[in-house]
């Protein structure tokens, strides 16, 4: 099972988004409530300050500055039961303090009768209004907002705890839901991985859920069924083709054999023998074509592939070809690195190498050389020093029925097409280049290309 990590997995991202959304919405809700509470506190304080200010203004008008100072002192001596504090400051026209418990004029303009929250030098936030009482008298009245502050603190605590709880719950619920979904999606992924690995009969377990993932499982299984049927059909068609063509050829061959037994004429016997050889040629052609088609159909199908020792297979082939090289007067050098392994079909890989060797021996000139190399990767290389292959033919050479020199006769031009089909079935890359002189065929594993 691949582990995508928290941020690449769809389910990890969904869980994280749910967490983020719950945190942000808690924060927004808190901001709104905080705003309402603040506006309410401001309105209440405003009314209280304004009433006090209006009373003091009346006192100033009726009793003068002395009366005002006395009354402010009275008020300051009163201990309020709600714990809030009142602040006053009376100054003359030049700003000198005449009465009150504030030492400095706050940052308020008396000219426009400004009212707002200000912070006192000791750090206490106070709602205050400043006003001009007369030509040489100004007044500031303020109220502390301890009740409001405490309320806001409690709100903040409440929202923080609620937010944390919501986040935890959403993380947990998201994780649970994601884990369930994830296991269902991974069942689909695991099934396809198993099919790729060759267990073509693997299917997604269906539990009858009629949701999107249930539908996905159903569709996946239907598609896999169809692939299975196509593979079977492809096989059945090629098997039947082989059977239907081989059977009459068999009858024909038997009849020729009977005729051969009945004749003593060597010329006729030779001709009949040649006919039998030709029948075998047709059978070989048919097999090669079906092999190519079958191998091409198996591309990406890992069934029947096992860990094989390519070096061993190559050694056996090198042994087989050494004798024929000596016989043909062609130098043959096999440089086979030991222990080169790969996942493959041993018979097909032998066939691939044998087809390349056949091709090289066919094109090496008398007295020429064929070099056969196996290296890790895997890397298979077969070189001859014949005429080589012109650049414009290097793609075409792997197509069916391609023979660069038709007058050279042997074969149907299918050997390299089969070599290519086998290479691709094993996820190997096959190419031909110039060995200067001659042709160099290379088959490479993906990591060495």
């Amino acid at each position, binding site marked *: 099972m691949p582990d995508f990590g928290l941020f690449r997995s769809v389910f990890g991202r969904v869980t994280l988004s749910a967490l983020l959304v719950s945190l942000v919405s808690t924060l927004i809700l808190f901001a709104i409530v905080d705003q309402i509470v603040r506006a309410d506190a401001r309105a209440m304080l405003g009314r209280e300050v304004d009433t006090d200010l209006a009373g003091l203004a009346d006192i100033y008008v009726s009793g003068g500055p002395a009366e005002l100072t006395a009354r402010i002192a009275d008020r300051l001596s009163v201990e309020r039961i709600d714990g809030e504090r009142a602040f006053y400051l009376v100054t003359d026209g030049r700003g000198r303090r005449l009465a009150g418990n504030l030492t400095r004029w706050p940052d308020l303009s008396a000219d426009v009768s400004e009212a707002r929250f200000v912070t006192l030098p000791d750090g206490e936030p106070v709602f205050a209004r400043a006003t001009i009482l007369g030509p040489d008298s100004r007044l500031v009245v303020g109220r502390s907002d301890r009740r409001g502050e405490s309320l806001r603190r409690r709100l903040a605590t409440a929202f923080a705890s609620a937010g944390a709880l919501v986040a935890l719950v959403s993380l947990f619920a998201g994780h649970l839901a994601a884990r369930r979904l994830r296991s269902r999606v991974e069942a689909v992924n695991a099934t396809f991985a198993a099919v790729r690995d060759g267990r073509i009969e693997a299917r997604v377990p269906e539990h009858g859920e009629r949701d999107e993932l249930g539908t996905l499982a159903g569709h996946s299984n239907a598609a896999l069924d169809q692939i299975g049927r196509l593979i079977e059909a492809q096989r059945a068609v090629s098997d039947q083709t082989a059977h239907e063509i081989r059977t009459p050829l068999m009858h024909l061959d*038997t009849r020729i054999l009977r005729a051969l037994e009945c004749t003593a004429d060597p010329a006729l016997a030779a001709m009949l023998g040649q006919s039998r050889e030709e029948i075998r040629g047709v059978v070989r052609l048919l097999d090669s074509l079906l092999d190519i088609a079958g191998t091409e159909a198996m591309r990406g199908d890992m069934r029947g592939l096992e860990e094989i020792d390519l070096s061993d297979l190559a050694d056996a082939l090198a042994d087989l070809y050494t004798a024929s090289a000596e016989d043909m007067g062609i130098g043959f050098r096999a440089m086979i690195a030991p222990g080169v392994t790969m996942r493959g079909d041993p018979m097909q890989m032998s066939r691939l190498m044998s087809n390349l060797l056949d091709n090289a021996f066919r094109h090496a000139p008398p007295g020429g050389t064929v070099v056969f190399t196996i290296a890790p990767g895997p890397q298979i290389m077969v070189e001859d020093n014949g005429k080589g292959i012109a650049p414009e033919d290097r793609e075409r050479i792997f197509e069916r029925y391609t023979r660069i020199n038709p007058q050279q006769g042997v074969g149907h031009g299918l*050997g390299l097409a089969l070599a290519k089909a086998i290479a691709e079935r094993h996820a190997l890359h096959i190419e031909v280049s110039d060995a200067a002189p001659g042709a160099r065929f290379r088959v490479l594993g993906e990591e060495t290309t």
Partner: protein
Amino acid sequence: MIMDDSAQIAVLLAEDDPSQAANVIAILNAASMRVDHAADGGEGLRRAAAGRYDVIILDRMLPTLSGIDIITRLRSAGVGAPVLMLSALGRAEHRVEGLESGVDDYLTKPFEPVELVARVRALWRRAGNQQHGAVLLHGDLECHLKARTAWRQGRHLPLSPKEFELFRYLMEHAGEVVTREMLLRHVWKLSFDPQTNVVDVNVGRLRRKLEEGFDAPVLETVWGTGYRLIAAEPGGA
């Protein structure tokens, strides 16, 4: 000698095509074998399970029950008689599949009559536990299996390891025709036919080592079919 050997060989043939069945029966009868014929898979399975046959020949594509099905059921039922599968499906993958399903040998149509006979005999011989001794003798040839040495008329023949394998296989089938395909499969473990004449060349080299310096030929080419080790009497022709 060979005729005497095969007089007792009882063969069951499961083949649906009447003309091919007649052909196979004729070939085997000519080699003095007794042949029972089953025309479809079900009958083939019944007879194979009931009767005592030395060798069973199964066509791969039979009506009612395929050759592969039959061999699977026979083997799981404990029937150990050697089975030769005769098939129109000759590609390498078919052979591998057939051999993996438990058949002992696989021959594709069209086949050489001599090859069919040779293979049935080989299977029969193998099943009869006719183990070869430590030394195989044929005419003036000797094959020492343990020491892996070859001798002719008491003279040691210097063979390479593969040439020895080839020689041993020919000695095990001495007097019978051995096809290129049999050699490829048993000596080189390849179930396909390389396009070039590598087998002929290898056999040719062995022949030179077997015959150079001697009067009589011992390895004969059966044209268009294969090879046969013939007997040259000890002490020369």
